[in-house]
């Protein structure tokens, strides 16, 4: 196996390059069958991280992981199963999507001050065999809420995969 190229921080100045219209809308906001997945990213002092970027990859509602292009232009592409959300000044991220048939969102986290990407999962409420601590909460208005803590007493469980 060849030695892999190391990662580096996304830095502070990525929004103009990586954000794009509709990046966090895997399906149009408010469309039939859609759900909002959202939350806040916090640092080890409990302060919001306003320069993070979250990406999700997921199956469709029937459990099929889509393998179609069009995520960068969304309109008319169909469900691609991938999205990107840059946190705002309050450290908030959000996606408009569908609840995956396979019961978790695969997640990568990038931020200024974070030297390499982090992997985790966000499970649907009630998912069987969920990793402890990684289950989203259903809010009264139907949205799914999951906060990410880079450090601290509520530090999110991050993953190491084989071969990474």
């Amino acid at each position, binding site marked *: 196996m060849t030695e*892999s190229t*190391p990662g580096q921080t996304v830095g502070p*100045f990525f929004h103009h390059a990586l954000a794009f219209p509709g990046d966090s809308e895997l399906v149009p906001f408010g469309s039939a069958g859609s759900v909002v997945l959202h939350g806040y990213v916090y640092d080890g002092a409990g302060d919001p991280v306003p320069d993070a970027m979250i990406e999700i990859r997921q199956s469709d509602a029937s459990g099929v992981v889509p393998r179609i292009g069009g995520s960068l*232009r969304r309109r008319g592409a169909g469900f691609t199963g991938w999205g990107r959300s840059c946190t705002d000044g309050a450290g908030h991220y959000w996606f408009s999507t569908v609840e995956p048939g396979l019961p978790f969102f695969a997640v990568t986290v990038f931020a200024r001050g974070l*030297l390499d990407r982090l992997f985790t999962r966000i499970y649907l409420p009630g998912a069987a065999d969920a990793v402890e601590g990684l289950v989203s909460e259903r809010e009264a208005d139907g949205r799914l809420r999951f906060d990410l803590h880079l450090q601290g007493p509520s530090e999110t469980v991050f993953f190491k*995969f084989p071969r990474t």
Partner: protein
Amino acid sequence: MTTSQHEISDEIAKIQADSPGGAPLLDFAPYRSTTLRHPTKEPLHVDPEGAELLAPVFGHSDVDAVEADLTLQRGGEPIGERIRVHGRVLDGDGRPVRRQLVEVWQANAAGRYSHQGDQHPAPLDPNFTGVGRCLTDDDGWYSFTSIKPGPYPWRNHHNAWRPAHIHFSLFGTDFTQRLITQMYFPGDQLLALDPIAQSITDPAALARLVASYDHAQSEHEWLLGYRWDIVLTGSHATYLEPSDD
């Protein structure tokens, strides 16, 4: 903010003596912003499943060919040293990553980003956004035409300067191969002083972030060529098709 470069370099040297590693250390105090942003718990070892085994797919409906030329996007010629950066994206087994998205962004020749958060008092270039995209070809090759970015100061410590670099965002065939990194230029004296680059404590691994000058890509009276190959981590998928190179 009175810490000197000398003190930062001493901190870096101590850590590197203790823990040479090929991946950047997330807990790397010389880069001050890591202090509250690195996880402290050991990562959970997990076998990828479902959506983790399949990277998102991008195609020509996502990216226009013109997006690979960062000198063309604003109607006028940007100021600076025109360059081409090209190379291959390979997976951890040496297979080309085909028809996959590569995103880049960088400062202009004066060391300033076209980002509202960048307040470095160097001039913006009205003809340069420093943002590009392309798809790799069937053999994993990418190519961007651009302007050599300038180094720029930052507030990590007194008289701190980032070496010139281009940010790269990459996808493989698995979601787990996702990579965002920075490409550096050969011979840059700032690399040894930079806490972000030096968080990769194994010099051989850091060398994999440095492009090489590629005279065969340089064009007569037009631009200078650089070659930089990118190797992602290994795929977890079982491939039925053999590699064809």
